[in-house]
């Protein structure tokens, strides 16, 4: 290993020298290329504090390449003169020589040569003097060179012997105990570690898991919401949402062309729904319009999971004896809306429903506080709102510390008797419910501004890889 040899020689030089050595001097005295010495310095530096090296630059004059050529072979004009035989030389021939062009004009002005343009066979050059004195040869061009070198001195742990540092502990070292004598190369703690080879869960789904957890902690059972296709009957009519309601427009709802219509309904219940819409009853004036089964039959992509709540409450009413329930669901809903940075045609709705005897508006407020407290939201206030199937209806606002203002975080209400009584639920049973979207809290939590960066195929997988776990309380 030649380099190791150089390094050791270098160490010995440093040991002898007082105050240090210059790498250039070492190179010239050892007859080595300077770069070899620099390499040795670098490898010694890598071994720790064996030496300390300080970079310095020195400047000196040196013959340029052209100067070297002139010093050896004479000036260009002298070489032109020398190359012309006594019987002259065709100009074209001269120009072929490397020094021809430069040397020709100088030799002409020195009047060493002459050009006969009228010579037959083309212009020809002849010598005009016997011999010349080449002054140029003695004063050739030098140029300034900058040389970088190292000033090398002993380091804190200087030694003339080189011990190779180990990079890693090996099974052999552990077995034979050699690790005790070895020196180990220090780790670079500034560098990042290697990313573990693993899969990742999607941030929105991580948040969904937490919301499920919260509902389960609160004793809510999960509703089966695996039915994206719903009839208008369950999505709207059963919720006492009139058939002319704007939400039932093609502008807001996706209708199906195949299968276009639902065919099966609980007939008795359907009749009661029809009646409460068109004539009233159950203590209601009704909407007093011509309710049409054709409108109720239209299949749609459900616009809210409340359609499933309606099915579940209807089933509850079909029990022999009413039992109180707490239900929740988190699943996709669909709106044929104009899309923008925060709106997609589909999103996840979170919904909670409690049905029991004698629930009050105060109970709804209380349960909303419990729910949102689990999300880390404790400052709430409630605004009266309108919703066709809840009365009272309340929008839930929370105080956003970052934005320094109240922001809407959800909707809530008590289901209308016109919805519950036709189902067959006892008159003194109240059903309170609330809902919010899953995407919005997730976007706030993970600092995402465009919903397309969160949901759908345009998601950036790096974002998925890098997203932290979801702890809602923080």
């Amino acid at each position, binding site marked *: 290993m030649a380099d190791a040899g150089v390094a050791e020689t270098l160490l010995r030089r440093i040991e002898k020298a007082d105050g240090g050595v210059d790498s250039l001097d070492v190179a010239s005295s050892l007859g080595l290329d300077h770069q070899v010495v620099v390499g040795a310095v670098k490898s010694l530096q890598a071994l720790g504090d064996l030496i300390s090296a300080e970079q310095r630059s020195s400047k000196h004059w040196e013959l340029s390449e052209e100067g070297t050529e002139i010093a050896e072979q004479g000036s260009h004009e002298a070489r032109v003169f020398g190359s012309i035989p006594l019987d002259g030389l065709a100009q074209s021939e001269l120009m072929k020589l490397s020094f021809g062009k430069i040397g020709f004009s100088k030799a002409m002005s020195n009047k060493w040569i002459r050009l006969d343009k009228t010579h037959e066979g083309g212009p020809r050059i002849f010598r005009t003097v016997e011999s010349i004195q080449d002054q140029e040869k003695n004063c050739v061009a030098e140029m300034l060179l900058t040389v970088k070198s190292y000033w090398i001195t002993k380091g804190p742990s200087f030694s003339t012997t080189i011990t190779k540092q180990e990079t890693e502990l090996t099974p052999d070292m552990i077995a034979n105990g050699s690790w005790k004598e070895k020196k180990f190369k220090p780790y670079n703690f500034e560098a990042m570690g290697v990313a573990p080879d693993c*899969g990742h869960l999607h941030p929105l*789904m991580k948040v969904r898991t937490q919301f499920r957890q919260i509902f389960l902690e609160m004793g809510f059972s999960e509703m089966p919401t695996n039915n994206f296709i719903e009839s208008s009957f369950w999505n709207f009519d059963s919720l006492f949402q009139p058939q002319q309601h704007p939400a039932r427009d093609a502008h807001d709802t996706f209708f*199906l062309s195949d*299968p276009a219509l639902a065919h099966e309904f609980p007939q008795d219940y359907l009749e009661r729904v029809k009646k409460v819409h068109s004539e009233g009853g159950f203590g209601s*004036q009704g909407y007093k319009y011509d309710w049409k089964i054709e409108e109720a039959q239209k299949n749609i992509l459900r616009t809210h999971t409340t359609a499933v709540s309606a099915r579940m409450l209807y089933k509850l009413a079909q029990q022999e004896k009413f039992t109180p329930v707490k239900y929740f669901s988190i699943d*996709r809903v669909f709106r044929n809306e104009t899309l923008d940075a925060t709106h997609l045609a589909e999103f996840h709705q979170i919904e909670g429903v409690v049905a029991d005897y004698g629930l009050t508006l105060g109970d709804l407020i209380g349960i909303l506080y419990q729910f949102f407290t689990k999300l880390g939201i404790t400052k709430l206030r409630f605004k009266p709102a309108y919703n066709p199937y809840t009365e*009272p209806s309340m929008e839930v606002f929370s105080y956003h510390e970052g934005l320094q203002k109240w922001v809407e975080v959800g909707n809530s209400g008590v289901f*209308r*008797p016109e919805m519950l009584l036709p189902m067959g639920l006892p008159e003194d049973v109240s059903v309170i419910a609330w809902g919010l979207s899953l995407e919005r809290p997730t976007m706030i939590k993970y600092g995402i501004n465009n919903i397309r960066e969160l949901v759908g195929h345009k998601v950036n997988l790096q974002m998925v890889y890098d997203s932290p776990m979801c702890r809602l309380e923080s």
Partner: protein
Amino acid sequence: MPTVGVKRDLLFKALGKTYTDEEFDELCFEFGLELDEITSEREIISREQGDSKASGASDVILYKIDVPANRYDLLCLEGLVRGLQVFKNKLEAPRYRRVSPVSGEPQKLFITKETAAVRPHAVAAVLRNITFTQERYDSFIELQDKLHQNICRKRSLVAIGTHDLDTISGPFTYTAKPPGDISFKPLNQTKEYTATQLMSLYKTDSHLKHYLHIIEDEPVYPIIYDSNGIVLSMPPIINGDHSKITLKTKNVFVECTATDLTKAKIVLDMMVTMFSEYCSQPFTVEEAEVVYPDGKTCKYPELAYRKEKLSSEFINRKVGINESTEKIAELLTKMCLRSQATGVGDEIEVEIPPTRSDVIHACDIMEDAAMAYGFNNVPQTTPRTYTVANQFPLNKLTELLRQDLAAAGFTEALNFALCSEEDVADKLGKKISETRAVHISNPKTAEFQVARTTLLPGLLKTIASNRKMPLPLKLFEISDVVLKDETKDVGARNSRRFCAVYYNKSPGFEVIHGLLDRTMELLEVKSARGDGYHIQAAEDSTFFPGRCAEIFARGKSVGRLGVLHPDVINRFELTMPCSALEMDIEPFLGHTAETPLTHDVPMQEVIKHKFPTQGESSQAPSSRPTSTKTAFGDVSTAAGLKSLNDFLADKSYIEGFAASQADMAIFDAIPSAPCSTFCHLMRWYNHMKSFQRERASLPSAKSQFVLQATANDAGDDDDIDLFGSDDEAESAEADRIKEQRLAEYAAKKSKKPALVAKSSILLDVKPWDDETNMAELEQRVRSVSMDGLLWGQSKLVPVGYGIKKLQIGCVVEDEKVGTDLLEEAITAFEDYVQSVDVAAFNKI
């Protein structure tokens, strides 16, 4: 939610108080309004049309206030101010009165029968001696527009026309005429047009073009004339220019034409209650008489006050407060619902004014009390509802599986449930007709043509958007797809799928296959035929030929895996090989201890509730025969249902090609709706259920399919004797039919080419010692014979010291011959054989 723009200073002047923006926002919030934006005309114009256009515009501050969609009485400054003043106890809610004209007859509007075909209803009223200012006039026009956009459903349900009564003379006629026969000078035009011309004129009008469709294709258009033949309006499109109101107008004739009479009355009430404030007799409205084609007359506006009685206990109980009857009456009065305690117990009489058409139930009154009390003043309470939480089993499985799939190194993607037809069909090398996809009728873009039938396209698109990410890409998704399913009430159902893809420089089938093995391990399904899972080669145009396998679990196909076809890879704009796996996870649900919930609702109500004024129940449920014994076996047992299910696999009805009493008899014999595992039976059962109303009229059965329950009837000797012979003959006949059908079924089943799984095995048989006769050894080995075992070639392979072992091949049918069995049989030749090893085992 409609937004009303009002000038701030005008609002404060009317309210008699100046608020800061925050104070007013707070007031709105309490009252259920939202101060959406504080702006000015200049700001709006400069935002919408650029700064240059805004230079001359007004700088007056505008409040944009969001109003709940059912509060039509708050859609203008007048209504807002009235509502807020009453709420703040600064004003008593005015009483609106309908009055007769001071002199002469009321204005009359005759409706002709022609209108029935297009827009049958009309109502009218007169605002007498009104004083307009520019602001009032603007608000008057604005309210019409707000009502048109909201309750009038963009004029389709109701259209409002307002006219200067002094320019026209009654009686008025509301009729309908062919568009060519209608000609008049419409509002703000300089010449007369026919209705046909108007329709083409307004095609390009940014405002009016939205209403043309309401009557465009009708043979006749609605039109209102005065006694001199002057056109008042052609609803719901445009008024006539002749009768237009100006700032100088003193007397206003308001007409509303409609397809929905209830809403027309509400709209008319709103118009006149809001603006009668500016009449010389404030809040009085002069009546108008509407004469129907049959001569019946009605006076409008209705301005009906309705009285409701309820108890303060009801309100306290529903809201969760404890206030005195008087206090609650006060609260309601603040909400324009004039109320007082009647003195009878805790009864309150509430008067609902014509402006509050949103109050249709006692719960609406309760809400107003809660609003006046202040939602934020209601004490928080915790419901005592005791429940035990259950997870939806399918979601529970999904959650658990997701965690472990991420732990297996795959990253979760989340894609849209809606996509283009191309995504689920063409791009995967399939036809859309084969996909069972549900189709959307009104997609705004191609991205929403269908609900996805597979998760694969979403994952491939996710990869396409992430091509710059380091390879390999390993993605998965567990989510629902939607498939048409006629057994469901809506004709479609969700199916929970698990899909995974591996995208790298090499296809990595083994990675995807390994993921399948891991998934099955997680689901506790062993690798085995029959009760476990296995994969076998399959044809699928999505996959590269010969590189696709079908996944079978417990004998059922649950999905596919393989290397994607290069065409598929190209169509998704990918460049690398890719292997994929997609399977149903619902078959792995197993039996959970939790109550299985479903969104399927009972179609027949078993529990009869007492409903008020419920009509006679349509039909008494037919009495069910006590017997569940049928020609297909006892249908109260799974075996009986299975045989019925098999029978119905290729038949729509029990007998022939139409529903008959035979179907009904079997239907009645089945004790409860069959479970969905019997899909053919389920389909038939649901179909039969739809015949329940007309069951009596179905043709009679040719054979008897339901048998007498012999055990139960043992005591009734007489009956048996009486019909004994018939019964015997029929049951024999039924038995014969049953056997014949079962035989047919068995024959049909046997005709199906059974795919037998085979393996090729290479055995090393080592001799007992160096003196063993190898020829005899081979003979003995070959003497082993079993069903499904075929011996192949053999050779002797030296093992050392001159000893040779016998290497012999064979082909076995997996289900019949196992390697254990073979080894056991061969080692039985103890004199010859020392040991037997399986040198190679390959599935064929």
